[in-house]
């Protein structure tokens, strides 16, 4: 996904409903591509990619909201939003810590102790954020995310 999202084949002259189904069928499964890497916690890029996938899927669910049955759509949208929130908490801290490390590396030596004390505090918060990730990501299994997506794609035909 690094070079942009996988294209979805959509006929601009076709119906909006048809585009909704096609988009969800592609963007839904993409959410799970980097889940194992994110859970392993060894590569911050996996977390980043999963967050991007969650944003794209959320956008599809919002743009095409009217094309899916209300209740099932809302249930899935809520699950995706909650997943995205858990990913964002960790990702935002990763970005903040990276930025401060780069700043500290270029700063005068006498300035570094202060910046590093702030980094240490943010890093402690990042560890806590890691604790929130597994429950959020395991919820995708518990609430049968893939099945919800498949059903919505199917229901979108009507």
């Amino acid at each position, binding site marked *: 996904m690094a070079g942009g*999202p996988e294209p*979805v084949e*959509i*006929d*601009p*002259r*076709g*119906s*909006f*409903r*048809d*585009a*909704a189904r096609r*988009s969800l069928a592609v963007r839904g499964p993409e959410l799970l591509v980097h889940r194992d890497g994110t859970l392993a916690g060894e590569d911050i890029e996996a977390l980043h990619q999963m967050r991007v996938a969650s*944003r*794209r899927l*959320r*956008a*599809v669910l*919002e*743009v095409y909201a*009217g*094309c899916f049955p209300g209740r099932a759509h809302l249930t899935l949208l809520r699950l995706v939003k909650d997943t995205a929130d858990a990913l964002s908490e960790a990702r935002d801290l990763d*970005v*903040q810590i990276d*930025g*401060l490390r780069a*700043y500290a590396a270029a*700063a*005068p030596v*006498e*300035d*570094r*102790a*202060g*910046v590093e*004390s*702030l980094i240490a*505090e943010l890093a402690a918060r990042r560890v806590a954020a890691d604790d929130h990730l597994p429950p959020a990501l395991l919820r995708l299994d518990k609430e049968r995310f893939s099945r919800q997506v498949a059903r919505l794609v199917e229901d979108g035909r009507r």
Partner: protein
Amino acid sequence: MRAHGVRGLDPDGSFRANAARIVRTRLDELYAFDPAIRDPDRVTELHDMRIAAKRLRYVLEIVGFSFGKVGARLEGEARWLQEVLGEIHDADVLVPEIDAHVARLREQDRVFLVAADRSPEAFAALPNRAAYVGLEALVVATTARRTVLYATFLDRWDTLRRTGFRERVRQALAKPGS
């Protein structure tokens, strides 16, 4: 910031007609933050405009292809706005974060000094003495960067307005089969 509902969408209608309605609504949302964002201290409005730019960008990632070059150009502008406003927001978040951190360090030092009966030796050996200067400099560097980012943002935003970008996009959206 809640997104405005898009009126008149028809799931069985054409993709392009529905897409145009959504893009128009998200575009109007973005422009609604002007003139508030002309005040650099309107932190909330600048943040909300970032969210509006993000929504527009993600909508265009999905539907932009059906508007050809105008769709691609608008997506590029939305992405740029999202990124620059995101960096401004990062600065707006970081400065209070630093202030709160300094307050905690001060409190630790105060407790340390009281416990040491405020001796000159303890005062010279405050645990966080070396941290203050770097954190103060970080605030200065962050606010200076924010000033430059805001000027860059406003300059480009004004260029978009001056060159009638919104009107051209709206015209393209209104064309059947554009």
